[in-house]
């Protein structure tokens, strides 16, 4: 069987082999490994068989812990089984991994190695997770490139079957897992040749079966455990030989040769770097480059890290070695060195002590590099080799950063490059929405598969979910590509969006004589005068060839909308000459057919038309001799920003985060809030503009639904208008509560994402022209300056006194300042309106425990974060612990606050005479049930602090530190359905059963949104999700009814788009309830495949069809002898399918699995009817008469002082 060349990424390469060689696969999504599970699931769903002709069973579990447990069980009963994971997921698997290894069980876990969260979470790659698994007893095998991922996946499987040690096969997250490379794909014959059927039989014979019953998993005592633990030694001793044997066999079958430790470089090298993972590729490239220029160096690539074969390690080093630098992609704080450094040191020392070291004891230094996918470039590699030359080289160094605190870092010459001239190095700046990355992935496939060139693609995304910028790095060349770092010296740069010119220095990486392609509104004769000065300067200085195309126009003319991908791709091929023009066009069209063919001929034809119209619109620009532009790049942040934002945040925003030194960062992961306001993203093409001339009914609905707090309302004294900009709009306030005051609706022009939800929800229509409402979408650029001034003035208007606000109404709540603003959430996000509302109502006394997921990313991902504070400096304090522990994390906060409150109360009581009876009694008996009550208590606490400041007793000092706890604090536990229904459900259940006063907000999008839409137990029947490609066969878990069973939990199910007033009431009641509260909020989501502008309409339909009945279950009512359950929505009035088929997640099933769609839709209809009947009957029961849930526990089982 001939081996094909394929262009795929590391995850696909691992999944390809894993799916072929396993029978049971249990998975759980976690970045960057999710794709491996998704591939396996898709292939099984499509009926792809494994090597032995059966379709592997793929099962999604509730957590990685669950996946590991299931795999353990599957292995124990004889199936060939695997899983995929990374980071925290791997940590959750550790207990099972110890068992699996202790029981000498053959399996391979494929891990795309990722940073483990410490001072911060990071989704990117390093070895901190796999290093945590060193004690599990798993063998550990590293792959350094996409080709190696496929090869080692097979070698690992062969070795585990023979040697019985389970193998953790790992490769670098993102750098390898997501790098697209042209590789040679192994054939079934290769796989068959490597896998010994007798060993599979032996694996099965070791399985648990009642036919040959045995017992495994005993408990052992001090007398025998130790000895029994040592029985495995022979397997560990033999395993390196087993792996090498598999590698040797692989070399015979496939041709590629591997060793446990692969040395590359000069046979007489004196300086050797020891390294593992993708960085080894860059070191190899640098070694080649430097040796050709007279250096005498080498690199030792560690492949089998565990069991560490000391003898082979030493043998692999050249006898000439005098200096070794061990590079670890992890940090082990407090250790005497990083793990591999210690191994190398131990190995060398052991052999030295035993007089077996075949060379003089070398200098050995260790260093860290590449944490969280930090770039690792030839310049850094050279710095390490240069350091090794020194008499006293730095040990425990870092490379790639500037450590100006403990001075660990090596300096490097960033201009050093090893990139050969015959490699095309192309960078593309695009928007997520314009399809740039997809087109580039296709380009790599075209070049990889239609030419003899090697091809590599790597893609960088920013951390925002709306208006995100992408940078594609593509390399093509005649030899295999080892450059596992971003392009620094581009000979082709394409800028797919005009507005990037004023945001980024897109030509920063362009080398002299490079080519620049710009998507431009302006033609070849006009464009020059429109370019910023720095762009003109670089074009002239670097003698850049400059091309323009009006891709927007071609896209418009061919029905492509915003997607300029195909057009820009055609330009790239036309200019770069990678392929002859006609061949390139034929290849692009062929690729279009492959990509879009199944989505209908019309899409294919549109793309064809775009290709055909492109060349006529592509023009080279004549470059003038001198720079003429006066257009400068605007400052990244305003001058008014705080120093930290100016000095640190701005650098990150501008893309210079890599050059920030250690000293500027907080030491413990603590960051200021209120930073999103300084990042003016200007991503909206259109923004809403208010019509103050009479149409507006002042309902404030526009403000409550805004996902980004970018449209706001205020009432204020007319006198304030004296200094307003001339274009600032206002009208008389219509209600009685603020009679005589002025009212304004104002948009934040540079923060609005242009989703249009506010306009969609606006109920007021212009009487003269009904297409107009009280707010209307208007083109942003022409009014940006004007509205910026208006918004600045709006912000300067005083905030409404919270004591006067009718907080339990939609209208009133919107006069409270949002303390969650301008997040990076998706345009039109369905979650953030709820989060923002909570901050308006309780933000100035709120502490948030946020589960990992969308909300922790748009809430806490640098550079800027949306949680903010009011003019008094008060606002939500926010933290994210993990994905699985969020409820417990929040409960801990509550326990701590309660305790501190209690201690403060005790001291106040004790110090009554010193404080004064009146003040003490007022504090002790304060009613803090409403805003005036809280305000007054704050005043008392201020008085108290003043008094305490003058006292010297230990009680006074203690009370001073605790006094703020006398003011009511509101603990909020927030997260998505993946957390609440699946991975964190056990904790959530325990926390609501605790009776403590916590408020739990479940932002239910019915899928794991953050990792790309995988099924959770909240996913409804008949909906398609990842891991449920044929539609979810079972109904949604009813979390609300489960919680109601406790009787003492406040439960509300809400949907803002159906009833915003009920939403506000639910928040009010939940917070006021002195016990656990659970709010389950329907959150429309981009992963539903809907028109995000109409998200609130989808919410309405979800309720009206009965899928999402809204209700409130208040245990306080039961205490009053009333039924605690109040159904707020009406009986279903439309069919479930009328709602469902508004959404692609349901509709696509009718296109992909029509028969199943019909059947599941029928069952889904039955689901909603049954759910409604059950709720209706619960709500109708008379308390004491049977079925209505009576409190199973006292409403307040444990004292909670707030």
């Amino acid at each position, binding site marked *: 069987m001939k081996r094909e060349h394929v262009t795929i990424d590391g995850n696909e390469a691992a999944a390809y082999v894993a799916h072929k060689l396993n029978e049971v696969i249990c998975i759980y999504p976690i970045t960057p490994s999710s794709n491996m599970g998704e591939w396996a699931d898709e292939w099984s769903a499509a009926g792809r068989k494994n090597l032995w002709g059966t379709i592997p069973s793929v099962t999604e579990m509730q957590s990685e812990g669950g996946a590991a447990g299931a795999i353990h069980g599957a292995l124990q009963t004889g199936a060939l089984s695997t899983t995929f994971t990374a980071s925290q997921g791997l940590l959750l698997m550790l207990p099972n991994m110890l068992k699996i290894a202790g029981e000498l069980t053959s399996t391979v876990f494929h891990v795309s190695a990722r940073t483990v969260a410490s001072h911060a979470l990071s989704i990117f790659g390093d070895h901190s997770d796999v290093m945590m698994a060193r004690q599990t007893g798993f063998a550990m095998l590293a792959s350094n490139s996409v080709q190696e991922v496929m090869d080692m996946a097979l070698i690992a499987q062969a070795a585990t079957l023979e040697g019985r040690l389970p193998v953790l096969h790992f490769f670098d997250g993102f750098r390898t897992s997501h790098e697209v490379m042209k590789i040679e794909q192994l054939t079934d014959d290769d796989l068959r040749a490597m896998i010994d059927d007798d060993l599979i039989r032996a694996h099965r014979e070791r399985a648990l079966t009642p036919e040959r019953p045995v017992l495994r998993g005993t408990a052992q005592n001090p007398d025998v455990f130790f000895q029994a633990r040592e029985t495995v030694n022979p397997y560990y001793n033999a395993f390196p030989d087993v792996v090498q044997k598999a590698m040797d066999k692989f070399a015979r079958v496939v041709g590629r040769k591997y060793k446990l430790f692969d040395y590359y470089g000069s046979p007489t090298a004196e300086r050797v770097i020891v390294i593992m993972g993708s960085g080894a590729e860059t070191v190899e490239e640098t070694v080649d480059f430097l040796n050709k220029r007279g250096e005498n160096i080498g690199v030792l690539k560690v492949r089998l890290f565990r069991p560490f074969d000391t003898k082979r390690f030493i043998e692999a080093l050249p006898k000439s070695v005098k200096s070794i630098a061990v590079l670890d992609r992890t940090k082990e704080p407090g250790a005497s060195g990083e793990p591999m450094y210690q191994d190398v040191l131990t190995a060398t020392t052991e052999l030295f002590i035993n007089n077996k070291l075949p060379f003089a004891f070398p200098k050995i230094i260790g260093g860290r590099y590449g944490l969280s996918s930090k770039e690792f470039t030839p310049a850094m590699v050279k710095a390490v080799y240069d350091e090794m030359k020194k008499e006293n080289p730095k040990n425990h160094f870092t490379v790639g950063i500037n450590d100006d605190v403990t001075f660990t870092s090596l300096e490097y010459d960033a201009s050093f490059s090893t990139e050969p001239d015959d490699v095309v190095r192309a960078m593309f700046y695009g928007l*997520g929405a314009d399809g740039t990355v997809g087109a580039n992935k296709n380009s790599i496939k075209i070049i990889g598969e239609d030419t003899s060139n090697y091809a590599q693609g790597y893609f960088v995304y920013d951390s925002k979910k709306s208006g995100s910028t992408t940078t594609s790095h593509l390399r093509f060349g005649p030899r295999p590509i080892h450059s596992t770092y971003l392009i620094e010296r581009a000979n082709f740069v394409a800028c797919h969006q005009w507005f990037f010119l004023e945001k980024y220095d897109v030509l920063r990486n362009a080398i002299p004589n490079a080519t620049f392609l710009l998507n431009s509104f302006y033609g070849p004769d006009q464009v020059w005068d429109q370019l910023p000065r720095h762009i003109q300067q670089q074009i002239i200085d670097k003698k850049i060839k400059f091309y323009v195309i009006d891709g927007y126009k071609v896209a418009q003319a061919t029905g492509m909308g915003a997607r300029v991908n195909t057009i820009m791709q055609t330009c790239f091929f036309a200019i770069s000459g990678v392929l002859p023009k006609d061949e390139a066009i034929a290849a692009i069209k062929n690729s279009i057919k492959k990509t879009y063919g199944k*989505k209908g001929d019309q899409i294919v034809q549109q793309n064809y038309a775009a290709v055909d119209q492109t060349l006529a619109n592509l023009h080279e620009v004549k470059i003038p001799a001198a720079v003429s532009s006066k257009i400068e790049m605007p400052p990244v942040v305003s001058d008014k920003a705080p120093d930290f934002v100016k000095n640190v945040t701005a650098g990150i925003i501008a893309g210079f985060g890599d050059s920030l030194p250690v000293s500027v960062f907080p030491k413990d992961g603590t960051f200021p809030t209120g930073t999103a306001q300084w990042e003016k993203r200007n991503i909206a093409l259109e923004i809403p503009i208010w019509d103050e001339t009479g149409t507006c009914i002042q309902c404030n609905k526009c403000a409550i639904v805004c996902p980004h707090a970018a449209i706001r309302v205020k009432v204020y004294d007319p006198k304030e208008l004296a200094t307003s900009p001339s274009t600032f709009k206002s009208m008389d306030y219509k209600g009685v509560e603020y009679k005589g005051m002025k009212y304004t609706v104002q948009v934040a022009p540079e923060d609005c994402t242009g989703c249009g939800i506010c306009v969609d929800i606006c109920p007021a229509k212009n009487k003269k022209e009904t297409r107009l409402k009280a707010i209307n979408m208007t083109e942003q650029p022409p009014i940006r300056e004007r509205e910026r001034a208006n918004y600045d003035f709006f912000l300067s208007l005083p905030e409404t006194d919270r004591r006067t606000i009718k907080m339990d109404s939609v209208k009133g709540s919107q006069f409270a300042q949002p303390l969650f603003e301008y997040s990076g959430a998706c345009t039109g996000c369905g979650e953030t309106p709820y989060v923002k509302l909570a901050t308006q109502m309780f933000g100035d006394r709120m502490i948030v425990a946020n589960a990992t997921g969308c909300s922790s990313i748009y809430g806490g991902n640098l550079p800027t974060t949306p949680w903010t504070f009011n003019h008094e400096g008060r606002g939500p304090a926010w933290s994210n612990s993990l994905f699985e522990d969020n409820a417990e994390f929040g409960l801990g906060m509550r326990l701590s606050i309660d305790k501190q409150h209690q201690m403060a109360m005790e001291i106040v009581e004790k110090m009554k005479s010193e404080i004064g009876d009146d003040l003490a009694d007022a504090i002790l008996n304060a009613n803090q049930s409403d805003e005036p009550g809280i305000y007054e208590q704050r005043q008392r606490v201020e008085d108290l602090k003043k008094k305490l400041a003058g006292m010297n007793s230990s009680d006074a000092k203690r009370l001073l530190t605790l006094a703020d706890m006398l003011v009511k604090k509101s603990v909020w536990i927030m997260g998505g359905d993946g957390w609440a229904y699946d991975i964190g459900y056990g904790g959530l259940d325990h926390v609501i059963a605790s009776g403590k006063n916590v408020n739990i907000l479940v932002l239910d999008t019915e899928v794991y949104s953050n*990792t790309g839409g995988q099924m959770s137990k909240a996913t409804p029947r008949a909906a398609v999700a990842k891991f449920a490609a044929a539609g979810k066969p079972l109904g949604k878990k009813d979390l609300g009814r489960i919680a109601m069973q406790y009787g003492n939990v406040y439960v509300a199910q809400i949907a803002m788009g159906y009833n915003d007033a009920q939403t506000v009431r639910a928040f009010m009641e939940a917070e006021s309830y002195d016990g656990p509260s659970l709010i389950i909020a329907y959150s429309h989501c981009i992963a539903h495949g809907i028109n995000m502008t109409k998200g609130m309409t989808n919410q309405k339909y979800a309720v009206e069809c009965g899928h999402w009945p809204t209700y409130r279950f208040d245990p306080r009512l039961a205490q009053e002898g009333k039924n605690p359950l109040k159904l707020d929505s009406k009986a279903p009035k439309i069919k479930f399918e009328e709602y469902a088929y508004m959404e692609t997640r349901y509709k696509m099933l009718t296109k992909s699995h029509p028969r199943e769609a019909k059947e599941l839709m029928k069952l889904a209809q039955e689901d909603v009817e049954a759910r409604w009947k059950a709720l209706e009957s619960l709500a109708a029961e008379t308390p004491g008469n049977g079925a209505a849930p009576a409190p199973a526990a006292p409403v307040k089982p444990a004292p909670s002082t707030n």
Partner: protein
Amino acid sequence: MDLSTNYLGLHLRNPLVASASPLSRSLDSMKRLEDSGASAIVMYSLFEEQIAHEAAELNHYLSYGTESFAESLTYFPESQEYNLGPDEYIELLHAAKEKLSIPVIGSLNGISVGGWIDYAKKIEQAGADALELNVYYIPTDPELTGQEVEDRYLEVLHAVKQAIKVPVAMKLSPFFSSMAHMAKRLDTAGANGLVLFNRFYQPDIDLETLEVVPGVVLSTPMAMRLPLRWIAILHGKVKASLAATSGVHTAQDVIKMLMAGADVTMMCSALLKHGPQHVTTVLSEVRQWMLEHEYVSVSQMKGSMSQKSVADPAAFERANYMKALNQYKVII
């Protein structure tokens, strides 16, 4: 008594055809129509816009938000294939042809001579006995002339006729400057039948929401007067078969249409209102009427009251308007 008739060259057991309606969306209801006596079924219409829109929508939402954020590069599993546009339609048509013994006529609704005409071929390949082209077009552009509008109809007809061999009927609106001339042009261009008339669903205004709403209403028997007149006028002047549709609710309506010159009458609103069994009732009443009035066959009465057969041909023309107006005045 012989109720049989010929339509588009098809021999039908009676002149009552179920026209394009939601009743042909399932095999079950199609079977019930056949069992109730319908002599042929026109399948529900496959809309050009629907085909295009469906593909565009699916592509848009499956790719919306993708390749933007490192953790969620896609949001949906990749399906191996999608059953897009006409696939479901074609499958149903195919199943209907296997299960039913009466002719099944496909229906395409559109205006452009685009790729959708390929679907005509697919409908033919699935076994349709004929194809009805419903050219539903509202010319709102003041620059567009009547001639251009008419030419579009003919272009579509030409394209479809070239693509398939089964008979093609054109379902028309009455809004032509010269209906008779238009009918003649289509007839000359090879239309095998003319279906008179398409009911344009007229939009309505919702006074509460201030929105334009579709406002679909079923036809009333009064709606039959327009096709009745034009069938009577066209009978004998064109080679194409004539089908009467709009407002055919009762046996009397059927008989009147046949007398005016229709080869078949098509029923939709009445069937939606009363169910497929209404066909049985109407057919039975037609038989009863024919018996009572001593007609022995449909062919005997077909066209007997057409313009060329009646004593006063002007009754179908302007003179008739004057007469009607005078009567109206008398009544008030």
